[in-house]
């Protein structure tokens, strides 16, 4: 009975993680098209959600292991998985509150590593795997995608220099819609199966499923729906940072960065050097800004880089603390669920102070959390605090739509 309760809790928590994964990453595909007006915000998230659901249902091969080589597989127990998922969820929610894109896979690995360290000591974690699978790709992804996007952007502007912008805008917007859809579909196939893998492992561990069998149909559908709903809910805070915060995105630039994002994601998925979708799309947008010679807000880029570096230890800290409770039986699990609910509620209430929705996502470039953290002259409307030159650019982005 206790075991069944724990298993059901872990499955629910895994689906919650899948949901946060969806809204954290919908910006990866859709921030560009939303910022240039190639796809309207609502349409963009519906499209991305649908493609994520389709992608999740298409992925047949589910990762046999969720340890990722960071530690030995036998250390993975149901309480560890629960604690790891909690660390990842909390980290995803906190970075969402701040509007910072960060890798959901890194958050999950961080949570699991933290939980394993508490359970089995720091020696059980393979340090070099962290370097080769987390640190190095986090540097490589934005570099590769950034260089690709910078060159593509220069070419896009160079080739269409004499073309009337009315003509070029339409064409580039179509191109952008295609590349963004590809990113959303690829995201569904890769990230949907992460949750399916977790749920399947838990079911096998609880002897509810034969070892060595694939995910059951309801698991596939539940995971697909959870990531799709998450994507649909939008993650507008992260969308604003990626679409407006790093650099103003013009239409040819958006098409070039979309091409770079999808090319890099597909190449890394099929040629053996895995890169995080989040890092790739951020790198493309940065690179396209550099390629156009636009004013890149490096302070935003720096904040994101810090968030990437902190993802593993941050989620690990929460995962480690959660691991202290998660193996205390039903009482511990119930206590954890209460804490999770409280944390979600607090973060939700904080996010309401400066709400960002599909209606105002492209109105400003800043994601504010606490008005008090800013000069007191700010009025309540976050749209009014954009500096003057940015304000002048706003109608331009609108008219391109």
């Amino acid at each position, binding site marked *: 009975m206790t075991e069944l309760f724990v298993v059901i809790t872990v499955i629910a928590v895994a689906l919650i993680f899948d949901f946060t994964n969806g809204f954290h990453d919908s910006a990866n595909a859709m921030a560009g098209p939303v910022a240039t007006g190639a796809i309207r915000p609502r349409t963009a998230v519906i499209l991305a959600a649908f493609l994520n659901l389709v*992608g999740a249902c*298409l*992925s*047949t*091969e589910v990762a046999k292991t969720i340890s990722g080589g960071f530690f030995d597989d036998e250390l993975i127990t149901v309480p560890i998985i629960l604690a790891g998922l909690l660390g990842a969820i909390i980290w995803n929610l906190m970075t969402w509150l701040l509007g910072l894109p960060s890798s959901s896979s890194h958050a999950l690995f961080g949570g699991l590593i933290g939980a394993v360290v508490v359970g089995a000591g720091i020696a059980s974690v393979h340090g*070099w795997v962290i*370097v*080769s699978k987390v640190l*190095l790709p986090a540097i*490589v992804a934005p570099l*590769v*995608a950034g*260089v*690709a*996007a910078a*060159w*593509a*952007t220069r*070419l*896009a502007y160079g*080739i*269409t220099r*004499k*073309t*009337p912008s009315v*003509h*070029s805008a339409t*064409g*580039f917007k179509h*191109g952008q819609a*295609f*590349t963004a859809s*590809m990113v959303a*579909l*690829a995201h569904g*196939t890769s990230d949907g199966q992460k949750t399916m893998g977790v749920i399947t492992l838990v079911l096998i561990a609880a002897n509810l499923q034969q070892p060595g069998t694939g995910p059951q149909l309801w698991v596939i559908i539940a995971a697909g729906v959870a990531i799709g709903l998450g994507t649909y809910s939008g993650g507008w805070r992260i969308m604003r940072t990626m679409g407006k915060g790093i650099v103003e995105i013009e239409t*040819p630039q958006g*098409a*070039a960065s979309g*091409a*770079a994002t*999808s*090319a*890099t994601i*597909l*190449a*890394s*998925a*099929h*040629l*053996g*050097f895995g*890169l995080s979708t989040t890092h790739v799309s951020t790198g493309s947008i940065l690179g396209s800004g550099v390629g156009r010679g636009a004013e890149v807000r490096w302070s935003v880029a720096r904040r994101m880089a810090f968030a990437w570096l902190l993802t593993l230890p941050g989620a690990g800290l929460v995962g480690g603390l959660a691991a202290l409770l998660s193996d205390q039986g039903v009482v511990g699990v119930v206590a954890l669920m209460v804490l999770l609910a409280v944390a979600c509620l607090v973060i939700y209430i904080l996010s309401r102070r400066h709400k960002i929705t599909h209606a105002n996502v492209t109105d400003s470039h800043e994601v504010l959390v606490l008005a008090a953290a800013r000069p007191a002259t700010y009025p309540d409307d976050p749209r009014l605090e954009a500096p003057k030159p940015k304000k002048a650019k706003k109608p331009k982005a609108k008219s391109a739509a």
Partner: protein
Amino acid sequence: MHVDWAALGIVAVVSIATSVIFTILLASGIRLISAAKIKSNEGGSGTVTLSLAYVLLGLAGLLVLFGIYLIIPQFH
């Protein structure tokens, strides 16, 4: 510490090359379509330019289809 530098190099080259090729095809197609429109507005015939534009955009479309082929595991 094992890092697959060869795979990393290939990923970098393929990513950059594909992005650049796709953008060249797309941007050239857009430029030619626009040129054809302007030509026909001025009374000339833009048929050749227009067909060339669609060939280029078709090639870009093939790249997109290849991407979808790579994404969907049932195809390979």
